[in-house]
């Protein structure tokens, strides 16, 4: 990385306006590692990378939403150390995030000038407000929009333009857009891109995150590719083609965790999913999961992976489709997780804290929650001695580290919390198998893992991979959703790819490679852009 040591009056095309140097961010692990990039005015600079590569983190640091752990930024000549979002905005750095901040009950004009409404006496000077708003809207091509319209009636694309208009009106010099076209239809996206091009030509520096590679190739001047928090390269778009981008994003990975992969897949089908739909995120998905199989689900953020698992589990009722579990002929759909659990399905959720754990309660109560009834004695009293023994056994099996099983789960590290979230299902399945011992074939035992290793350390990750192995060896079927493609390629027998809520294809272990999986992840993105 060479840094252009140019500074001067801002808004002159081609000159460095924002220089990021050695930027590093650590949470539990390093998510952004010594990244240096130069952003120039009059350029659209695309940030690319797989999920969790650090793109959004970098943008959040620039926009003052989160502080950096190390590194510095320069805005023109002066150091840029934003204390918060408002401070960054004061310096002309604006971010439009995926979650829009438009308040639906207020009018377009009120949304534009929320923090600095023109006053007149004690009231709002509506006339001046609407005048200003019309000027601001014209800048993003929304000339025809009445500033008095309630924002609630507008589409996503218009809301996005309103946020951009507000940013421009605050004299933005650097505009950051985090996946602005993700929620847009092709036509809307094309229109937005047109506006962005015009703004670039007017001298604005635009930082642009997108998963739509064709779009990036068509509009960006520079690209920077991040992988695992590190900057891979910054290149002028020049002669790059889609293949180059994918290769830079995936890279060649070094030796991974875990031992050799053993396949435990059996002939019998455990879970048959047919035409499962829950609009808008899950569209007509069909696949089979065999006993002893570890099936990974790959896809981009927002592609509907979590929604797929939740629809199978009955956490969100599906609109249509069928599930058949084991050899039972009657296809069903679960409308409450209770039904899924009774049929031998377990789900380890992505967000442990919000829907997986009782944080303030002890390990014991968390682990025994599901099969509590088996410890009930006289008068309905829980035999806590027996309960404790069972919990301690399960915890030891996963090498759970805690002071005692009476320690609140909230005090544990992420990895140990995840072990607790998994441990609670293990007893249930022992019970379930016993109750189904009369059944001729393998009992249906299905585990749905959603991002099982997010935010946990290497040792715990290894333990969870071992658990996958032993569950598969015992005949359970595992559906594993992960944003970490390496993880899936290492642990799974097959990987199914979904893109924008639709099933793309299924890769078998012997016949996959990173590039084709990654390409499949973008499958429907590409088609949509092409359609527009």
């Amino acid at each position, binding site marked *: 990385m060479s840094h252009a040591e140019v500074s001067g009056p801002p808004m002159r095309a081609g000159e460095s306006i924002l220089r990021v140097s050695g930027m590093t961010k650590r949470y539990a692990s390093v998510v952004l590692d010594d990244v240096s990039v130069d952003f120039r005015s009059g350029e659209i600079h695309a940030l690319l990378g797989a999920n969790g590569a650090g793109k959004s983190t970098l943008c959040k640091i620039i926009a003052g939403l989160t502080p950096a752990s190390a590194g510095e930024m320069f805005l023109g000549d002066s150091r840029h150390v934003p204390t918060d979002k408002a401070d960054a905005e004061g310096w002309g750095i604006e971010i439009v995030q995926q979650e829009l901040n438009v308040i639906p009950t207020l009018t377009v004009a009120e949304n534009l000038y929320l923090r600095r409404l023109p006053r007149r006496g004690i009231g709002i000077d509506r006339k001046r407000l609407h005048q200003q708003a019309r000027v601001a809207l014209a800048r993003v091509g929304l000339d025809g929009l009445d500033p008095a319209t309630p924002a609630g009636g507008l589409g996503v694309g218009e809301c996005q333009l309103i946020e951009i208009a507000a940013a421009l009106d605050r004299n933005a010099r650097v505009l950051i857009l985090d996946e602005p076209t993700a929620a847009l239809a092709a036509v809307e996206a094309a229109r937005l891109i047109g506006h962005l091009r015009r703004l670039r030509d007017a001298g604005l520096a635009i930082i642009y995150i997108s998963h739509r590679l064709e779009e990036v190739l068509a509009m960006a001047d520079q690209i920077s590719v991040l992988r695992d928090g590190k900057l891979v390269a910054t290149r002028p778009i020049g002669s790059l083609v889609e293949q180059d981008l994918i290769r830079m994003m995936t890279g060649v990975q070094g030796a991974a965790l875990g031992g050799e992969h053993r396949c435990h897949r059996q002939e019998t089908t455990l879970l048959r999913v047919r035409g499962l739909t829950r609009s808008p995120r899950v569209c007509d998905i069909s696949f089979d999961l065999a006993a002893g199989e570890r099936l990974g689900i790959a896809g981009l953020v927002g592609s509907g992976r979590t929604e797929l698992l939740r629809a199978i589990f009955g956490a969100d009722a599906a609109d249509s489709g069928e599930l058949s579990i084991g050899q039972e002929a009657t296809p069903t759909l679960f409308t409450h997780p209770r039904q899924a659990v009774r049929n031998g399905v377990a789900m380890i959720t992505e967000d442990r804290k919000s*829907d*997986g754990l009782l*944080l303030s309660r002890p390990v014991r109560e968390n682990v025994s929650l599901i099969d509590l009834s088996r410890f009930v004695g006289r008068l309905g009293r*829980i035999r806590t001695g027996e309960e*404790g023994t069972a919990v301690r056994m399960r915890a030891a099996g996963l090498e759970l580290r805690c002071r005692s099983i009476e320690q609140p789960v909230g005090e544990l590290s992420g990895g140990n919390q995840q072990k607790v979230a998994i441990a609670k299902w293990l007893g249930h399945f022992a019970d379930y198998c016993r109750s189904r011992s009369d059944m001729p074939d393998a009992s249906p035992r299905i585990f749905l893992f959603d991002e099982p290793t997010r935010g946990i350390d290497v040792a715990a990750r290894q333990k969870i991979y071992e658990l996958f192995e032993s569950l598969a060896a015992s005949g359970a079927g595992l559906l594993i959703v992960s944003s970490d493609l390496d993880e899936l390629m290492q642990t799974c027998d097959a990987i199914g790819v979904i893109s924008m809520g639709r099933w793309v294809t299924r890769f078998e272990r012997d016949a996959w490679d990173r590039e084709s999986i990654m390409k499949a992840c973008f499958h429907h993105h590409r088609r949509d852009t092409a359609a527009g």
Partner: protein
Amino acid sequence: MRGEHETESSIVGPGRAIARWPIANVYRYFGLLAVLGLMCLLFGLASDRFLTPRTFTSIANQIPELTLVAVGMTLVLVIGGIDLSVGSLLALGSAILGVLMVDQGWPFWIAAPIAISVCGAAGLVNGMVSIGAGIPSFIVTLGMLEIARGLALLLTGSRIVYIGSSIESLGAPLGGLPLSPAFLISIGVVLAAQFVLAQTVMGRYCVAIGTNREAVRMAGIDPRPTAIKVFLISGLLCGLGGIVQASRLSSADPNAAVGLELSAIAAAVIGGTSLMGGRGNVISTWLGVWIIAVLQTGLAQCGFSDPSKRLITGLVIVAAVLIDAWRSRRWNGSP
């Protein structure tokens, strides 16, 4: 791999001794007992009439209805709800008892179960509407507060119904003992509720629901039946409280127990029950009831006026809630 964490903690340490009986780990109540003792000491120094057995037996015979209602309230608070209708339901229970016994001439043993059942049904409605339709229980029970009070006034024609000596025995001291059957019943209810909360599957589910209802659902447990049951219990206990109060006053007063819900919430909160759900203890609530009652009686004996009594009680409640907030912030406040 193992050595990395060995210094922090062992894989699974030995479990701390768990209480085998609801009251076994008395140390938990030391704080509240200390407050209670300190208050008695202060009032004893301020008034020479306070530290006498009579004071305490009279308090004991006055608190059963608040105790019963506060037990139900504690369970509701534990699941993360609130029941504002308890005072009105108590009045409704006593009104039904009065009307059935006086106007219809029915015996106590028929009238009382009916009164309790009607209050239970009202509690069930509270639960079904708030849990079933997903409306905050604050709103639903606020509606029930008005409905039940209106019903009580309609039934009695807004008059106090004098029932007479036939039901006084429930609230009056027993022959050999200075304590009333009502007090003993309330103690039984406290112990039973604490047993359910701390020792049974239902209690465990209640705490889990109040801690993280979505996690309970995602564990394949339907939280709704348990939550509705809790509102039902609260309603039933209100009916029982209404009967106890009617027997103590020898009459059914449709205007009785106005604002009782606030005393019940205060007792629960003083006892360390979290208003955010997931934490509560019935015996602590009972001690909270004692603290409120001792405060009221003590302040009265020391010659405080009614307004200043309310002021001081309010300060005590705010202090208790501050402590509660500080305790729960350890879990919920961190980002």
